[in-house]
């Protein structure tokens, strides 16, 4: 616990960056996970909704753990941004394909 007092400037930025990745990146990842799964299932509506929403909080949690467990802040961001952009792309595609 003493370590915090002697955190270097670099380490401080690293922590702040990880917090950003965990909170903003993690939430965005969970949000796009929810919308992608809901759009993939689509029917019945309530079921699609729950299938997307229920696990999304665990996705958020996993992202938070990842952000602080990964070796560097860069890896933390990469590990969140890559699946995030994939899911965002999927959401966009599913939104622009009429349901069969």
């Amino acid at each position, binding site marked *: 616990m003493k370590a915090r007092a002697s955190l270097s400037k670099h380490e401080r930025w690293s922590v702040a960056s990880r917090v950003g990745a965990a909170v903003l990146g993690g939430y965005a990842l969970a949000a796009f996970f*929810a919308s992608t799964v809901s*759009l993939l299932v689509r029917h019945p509506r309530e079921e699609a909704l729950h299938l997307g929403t229920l696990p*999304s909080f*665990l996705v958020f949690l996993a992202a*938070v*753990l990842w952000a602080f467990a990964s070796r560097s802040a860069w890896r933390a961001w990469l590990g969140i941004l890559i699946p995030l952009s994939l899911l965002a792309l999927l*959401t966009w595609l599913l939104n622009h394909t009429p349901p069969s």
Partner: protein
Amino acid sequence: MKEGFRRSMSWLHTWTGLLLGWVLFAMFLTGSAAYYRWEITHWMQPELRSTSQPLETALSAVTRLENIAADSPQWFIDLPDGRNDAARLLWRIPGPERRFGQETMDPANGRKALARETLGGDFFYRFHFQFHLPPLWGRYLAGLAAMFMLAALATGVIAHRRFFADFFTFRPGRPGLRSWLDFHNLAGVLTLPFCLVLAYSGLVILSPLYMPWGRLALAEPAHNPPAAGPIVTKHSIPMAPLAPMLQAADEAWGRTENGLRRIEISGRGTEACIVTLVRGQGRSLSVNSAERLRFNGASGLRLDAPSGERGPAGNLHGALYGLHLARFAGPFLRCLLFLTGLLATALIGTGLVLWTQRRRSSLGHTRPAFGLVLLEKLNLACIAGLPLSIAAFFWANRLVPATLEGRSDVEVQVFFCVWAAAVAHAFIRPQASAWREQLDSAGLLYLCLPALDLLTSGKHLQAAVINADRAHLGFLATMLVCGLLLLRISAKMRAHANPPSHTTQPATAEESVT
């Protein structure tokens, strides 16, 4: 590598636990109390003791609403049951905003209950996820805290090298950090499933607020009758008589413990008026399992029940929702849940205390930073101050005149004033004495509550004893136990602050620094 991982998880555990620790402490304490929401209301309204027939009560509730909320588009009627003495009427106030009026009706005479006005157990229930803040802000804060709780639990398990071995390690006699830490670990292992389920299901319950993205992605189909509706005028369509609908419910469900429990009427005054009769949940786990009968309110014709078919995810959602509310729990399970909730509260409290103690012990004799002192004071004002202000809330219920206008607000004001005083007291007094004084006074307030009950509403207490009123007497017994528990914690703290070898020096190192 593996050690680094564990260390970073441990770091995350301390910070997620600390940052919203006070919020979580308050959530778990008031949430535990909310398991006895109706029993607390029962004690706080001693004037209201009735046994009633649901059907007759339903009819008089409708008559009452015709008198006080005739122009409202939407009514809700909660009928009394084994845990709830009165009918609770709720109606939407006409207008663009979503505002509701409410009244407690005495089933015995169909009029406004003459019981003292109080929020009762609802205060704890609401505080548990809204903290008396504007509803949206409170709920966002609660969601954030639940997410922090999940993170703290996950990292706590990972960081804890000997998770199960430590379960069998409790060194209560050891001074200082060790026994706090042992208790924290023990409570953590015992309550882990409880905390996980409660934090997760809490998020799930309010997920339309926290995770609306699935719903937004699936374009909303047009639905819902005009619930807000226009203001009901004299020319609007009258309602069909309710008695035949109630009769149908009576035939379908009988008058058992889980017969008719709630009536919802929406779209009043229009042709699309819908009357929904909801059956009591009984001992069923899921909230989705509540059976309903629906009628067109204008014609009185029975409508098809909405398809009750749900997929596995829908069922899981209903079960998680039901688990959190614990309406299914009978007396024994309810008590167990309450005790687990208190243990989880203690888990959070010890975690908070450990954080500051560790910081301080790593400092040696150097002067602590202002931030650390501030944390210590606020820890104290939260952990000891909140039980104290809850006790004051109960005292206010008996001391504020029963007929005073707006007395339920006064009770709430007493709660917050005492809490503010606890904060001030924490800053004025030396640390160790402030802990003891707040815990002692909270303990005494709880212990004397039965005496206060006897002095201020003796005839109600007498009636409770004669009728073997389990809710009333159980409440008082719980208060006695809480009082003893708080005094015991205080005595423990005294023993810690004054180890036997230095009994002559009350000013411990801890005090001299602050």
